[in-house]
């Protein structure tokens, strides 16, 4: 029997040398003349172990990592093909505590299957949700999604079912499903991982969405920084088209649905749904005023569902196992699971999918194992560049939408970036303003001008010039941006700035820089 070796082609693994490992493995297999098949899977999301190579043995899968090309001959010598002992031996990957503690619903297959194999996808439960959906009325599908409690995973947390219902009820000759894959927030990579590791789940989710609301065309708007995801998605779409999942009639019995990947061109603001729609239409990515909602007048003025990758990829499991199954995970009004992305200065970085409700402290100290540098954790930015910086004092905050909001923060796309005690919070606040200034679409004044003024004021603070006055100006500026901006870019930039100022005030009181005497 052919032995299977799994070597990830996830770009995180590639960035750590997975391609060279695969080449070395293929070479060694050739030299030894043995019957081994290399499968290029996605990543399980344990990035400190990447490239993590897995072998299918008679006792199930066994992992080795992090593997360097120079480790390859010794792995074969240690009989790793039958799970032999080696310093890189990690045992059954499912038993690694970081993975064992997770509840993987959306990411159930990610890192396990060959992302290009529809057969693998079906073997591991894929397409069951779609088949169920095909036997239901559109209203029933929408009701399932509503009852599951699924909220937009892109950051806004808007109930997905309500959005779908609005589009279903809208009358039009044409409707669209748009997947927001413009994952621009630093500290987030869940969209990338699922697109590279299990693209069919996103395709299935979008097809279900199309059937539910009566849309026949879907677009995945993908950021240009993700060329590997583009390749995997396009391969998967071609396979899905051939298998009749996409085309004139979904699986031969459903309505028509077509799907296309469209690439962005490096504009953070295009992650905002209305700017994204303008960009898809071939315009500058300018934010639109709402109303009209995209659900009424979206892409090309037609009713459009705009959902994040993870929201759509969570739909198949809901239609497969039912709304109640999904809703039973989580806490409060945050139902189901959330793929937390643990990033930055951490010992164990990666993807941790779990029910809502863990505290920030458990995630940072316990699961992430503290900092990679071994220094104390000082600040954690939750929710990307527009998310607040949390100090240790707020580590008891449970990871869910409302709890973070109550503490002037947001969970956003659920990325957390950990900083050790060398971080300069004034510098981080300045970066937030600078980023907003560079990426602002320019439509509204608070965002366009406010961010530039913000950089200037924080620069004066850094020089210790009239600290009290500058701090007052920063607060006033943040207030104007928060309440006067059209979208979340200008509206949420105050979160990192104000949280840095509130929780780390000592960093904002600098000694005045004395001018050099001439």
């Amino acid at each position, binding site marked *: 029997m052919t032995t299977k070796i799994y070597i990830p082609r996830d770009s995180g693994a590639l*960035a750590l040398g997975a391609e060279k490992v695969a080449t070395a493995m293929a070479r060694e297999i050739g030299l030894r003349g043995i019957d081994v098949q290399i499968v290029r899977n996605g990543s399980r999301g344990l990035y400190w172990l990447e490239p993590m190579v897995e072998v299918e043995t008679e006792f199930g899968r066994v992992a080795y990592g992090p593997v360097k090309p120079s480790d390859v001959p010794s792995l074969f010598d240690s009989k790793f093909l039958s799970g032999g002992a080696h310093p890189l031996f990690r045992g059954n990957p499912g038993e690694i505590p970081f993975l064992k503690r997770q509840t993987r619903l959306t990411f159930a297959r990610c890192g396990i299957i060959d992302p290009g194999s529809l057969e693998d996808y079906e073997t591991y439960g894929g397409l069951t949700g779609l088949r169920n959906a095909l036997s239901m009325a559109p209203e029933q599908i929408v009701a399932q999604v509503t009852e599951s409690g699924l909220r937009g995973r892109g950051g806004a947390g808007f109930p997905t079912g309500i959005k779908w219902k609005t589009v279903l009820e809208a009358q039009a000759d044409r409707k669209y499903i748009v997947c927001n894959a413009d994952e621009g927030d*630093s500290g987030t990579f869940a969209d990338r991982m699922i697109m590279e590791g299990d693209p069919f789940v996103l395709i299935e989710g979008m097809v279900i969405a199309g059937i539910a609301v009566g849309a026949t065309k879907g677009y995945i708007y993908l950021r240009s920084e993700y060329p*590997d995801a583009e390749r995997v998605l396009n391969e998967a779409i071609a396979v899905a088209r051939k298998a009749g999942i996409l085309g004139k009639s979904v699986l031969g019995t459903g309505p028509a649905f077509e799907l296309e990947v469209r690439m962005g*061109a490096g504009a*953070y603001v295009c992650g905002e749904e209305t700017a994204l729609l303008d960009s898809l239409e071939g315009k500058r990515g300018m934010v639109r005023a709402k109303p009209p909602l995209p659900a009424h007048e979206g892409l090309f003025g037609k009713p459009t569902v705009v959902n994040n990758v993870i929201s759509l990829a969570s739909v198949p499991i809901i239609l497969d196992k039912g709304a109640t199954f999904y809703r039973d995970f989580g806490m409060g009004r945050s139902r189901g699971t959330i793929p937390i*992305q643990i990033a930055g200065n951490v010992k164990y970085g990666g993807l941790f999918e779990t029910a809502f409700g863990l505290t920030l402290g458990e995630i940072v100290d316990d699961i992430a194992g503290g900092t990679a540098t071994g220094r104390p954790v000082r600040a954690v930015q939750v929710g990307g*560049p527009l998310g607040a910086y949390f100090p240790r004092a707020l580590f008891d905050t449970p990871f869910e939408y409302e709890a973070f909001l109550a503490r002037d923060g947001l969970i956003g796309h659920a990325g957390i970036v950990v900083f050790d005690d060398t971080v300069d919070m004034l510098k981080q606040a300045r970066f937030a303003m600078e980023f907003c200034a560079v990426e602002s679409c320019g439509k509204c004044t608070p965002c366009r001008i406010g961010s530039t003024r913000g950089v200037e004021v924080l620069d004066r603070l850094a020089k210790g010039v009239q600290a009290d006055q500058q701090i007052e100006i920063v607060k006033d500026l943040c207030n104007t941006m928060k309440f006067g901006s059209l979208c979340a870019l200008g509206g949420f930039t105050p979160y990192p700035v104000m949280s840095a100022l509130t929780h780390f005030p000592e960093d904002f009181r600098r000694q005045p820089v004395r001018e050099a005497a001439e």
Partner: protein
Amino acid sequence: MQPARTEILSAVMPIVDQWRHEEGPLLPILNGILREFGYVPREVVPAIAEALNLSRAEVYGVVSFYHDYRENPPGRHVLKLCRAEACQSMGGDAIAERLQNLLGLKFGETAADGSVTLEPVYCLGLCACSPAAMLDGEVIGRLDDEKAREIAREVRA
């Protein structure tokens, strides 16, 4: 060396024709041109405008909006270094400083010998293996001094 105007237009027209009848064709066209030339030559603007029945100002407005659409040819290699928060938390600023020194370039510049262009990028989705970079489309994680020197050697070769 920049290609001649006629050369540019003859290469661009098939890309325009491939997309002109699709929905929202402008970004796919510009992305195609970017892939072909590594930048968006100013000369293509009137041709695209005419094909899509847009004004030149509209097309130029789109070209100038997106960071990817360089207006000048890049070096033989393009190095994009992530400057966002997750990479900052792992010493990204120091690596940025080091690479600028090694290459003798500031962000946004192309080496005089045309070997490399250095650009900032805001997140490559490699935040659990920071600091990260992308060299000619290939991703690199956990950048350190050794990897920075290796990159500098490679792009100069």
